[in-house]
């Protein structure tokens, strides 16, 4: 028996997985509060539609595609881990990380263009929300990538394969938040 009881089950679910779901419950409150605030301000300020028209739908759509693809590789990693194929799982996790990296590179190019065009975090309420919401989301991408590399390293050596699913659930949630950020920031204009 391991001292860290992430794989024990006493409540019909692995403790590690239960912990991830609790983490996501707290994330729902974080992103929910942020997006809820954005929505009420967006409704209260019709002029924000003008500001939103400066965001680039194609860049947003491309990044949505990237995250959806990375979610696919994350779930394929989970499947490989279930089959006991640690190396395959690790490769899929690396692909997922690659997706995260592409997402961040595109995001940084997008932000650079916007900031040099004068759309800064202090420009007005819309751009304030835009950078805060996308920034907190991007920081989740970065943290997820770090954890995923660590899990992939273990998986490569056929160790702790149950973690592949856990980091995958987190990654899907980050994808899910973007699924809502995309229409809010890029489509509703």
């Amino acid at each position, binding site marked *: 028996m391991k001292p860290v009881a992430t794989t024990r089950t006493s409540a019909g*679910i692995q403790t590690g997985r239960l912990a991830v779901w609790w983490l996501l*419950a707290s994330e729902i409150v974080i992103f929910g509060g942020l997006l809820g605030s954005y929505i009420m301000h967006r409704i209260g*300020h019709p*002029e924000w539609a003008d500001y939103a028209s400066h965001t680039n739908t194609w860049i947003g759509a491309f990044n*949505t595609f990237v995250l959806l693809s990375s*979610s696919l590789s994350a779930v394929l990693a989970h499947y490989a881990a279930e089959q006991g194929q*640690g190396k395959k799982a690790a490769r899929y996790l690396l692909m997922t990380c690659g997706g995260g990296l592409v997402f961040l590179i595109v995001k940084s190019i997008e932000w650079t263009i916007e900031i040099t065009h004068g759309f800064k975090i202090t420009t*007005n309420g819309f751009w304030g929300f835009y950078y805060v919401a996308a920034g907190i989301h991007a920081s989740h991408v970065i943290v997820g990538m770090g954890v995923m590399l660590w899990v992939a390293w273990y998986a490569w050596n056929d160790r702790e394969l149950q973690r592949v699913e856990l980091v995958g659930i987190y990654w899907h949630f980050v994808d899910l938040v973007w699924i809502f950020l*995309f229409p809010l920031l890029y489509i*509703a204009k």
Partner: protein
Amino acid sequence: MAEHAHDAHDEHGHDDHGPRHYIKIYIALLVLLVISVAGPFLEIQVITLMTAFGIAVVKAFLVAKYFMHLDVQPKYVIYFLVTALAFMGLFFFGVAPDVLHHEGQNWVNVDARDEVSRQLSAQAHLAQFDCSAEEHPHVDVEPMEGVANAFHTHGCNADGYWECEDGSCEQLEAGAGVFIAQAAFVTTCGPCHGEGGAGDGAAAAALDPHPANFTDPAFWAQERVTHEHIVSVIADGGAANGRSALMAAFGEQFTEEQIEALATYIESLNPNAAQ
């Protein structure tokens, strides 16, 4: 710990599981993405909102059910996630009525004021740009008889209209150094009242009450709307004249003669003016 992973597999134990199935879900997600991007091209707002947010909910459902396997977790996992969502709803409906309200006691709508000043400075920037680019102002300035050429100023950058970056004057169509009421209206009043004076400027949506619409006969039907009243509102602002506090005072920006010219120009927007 591969055997534990296998346990997890057994826990799921159903057929919608496997690479082929995941790829099907992925393709469905991509199709939904394409629809949500295509929706706004129809330029019908209801459809845009439905394709944007309706599809987001469907996509979220697919990811949660098939990628996160939420459906095979113990029931209480769903209960506490729903509880978190309920708190989000509680926050939204508890706070939104206040945030969405645009007036109140002991309170100034700073946001609306900021919006007005942002639009004013955006216009000033535009005017500056046009001038330095050696182009005529982007607005079609038509000299108005008795108004446009009536008041001479000390140079084209004297009173906050077509200001040249290097301080030199461009020869405008209507003649340099001439106060053009229409141009001044477009730059200074346009951000809120609209370039044509219909109360539909860029900042208008943010303002409650809305800026006056000078093309609406109902505006001119008000008893208090006289030439003197208009002059007074321009010079001293709305609050001093029983109108919206968001109407700024321009007494320092324009001379008395220029304000007279602006008021005359505004009166020319009255659709019944000819009668």
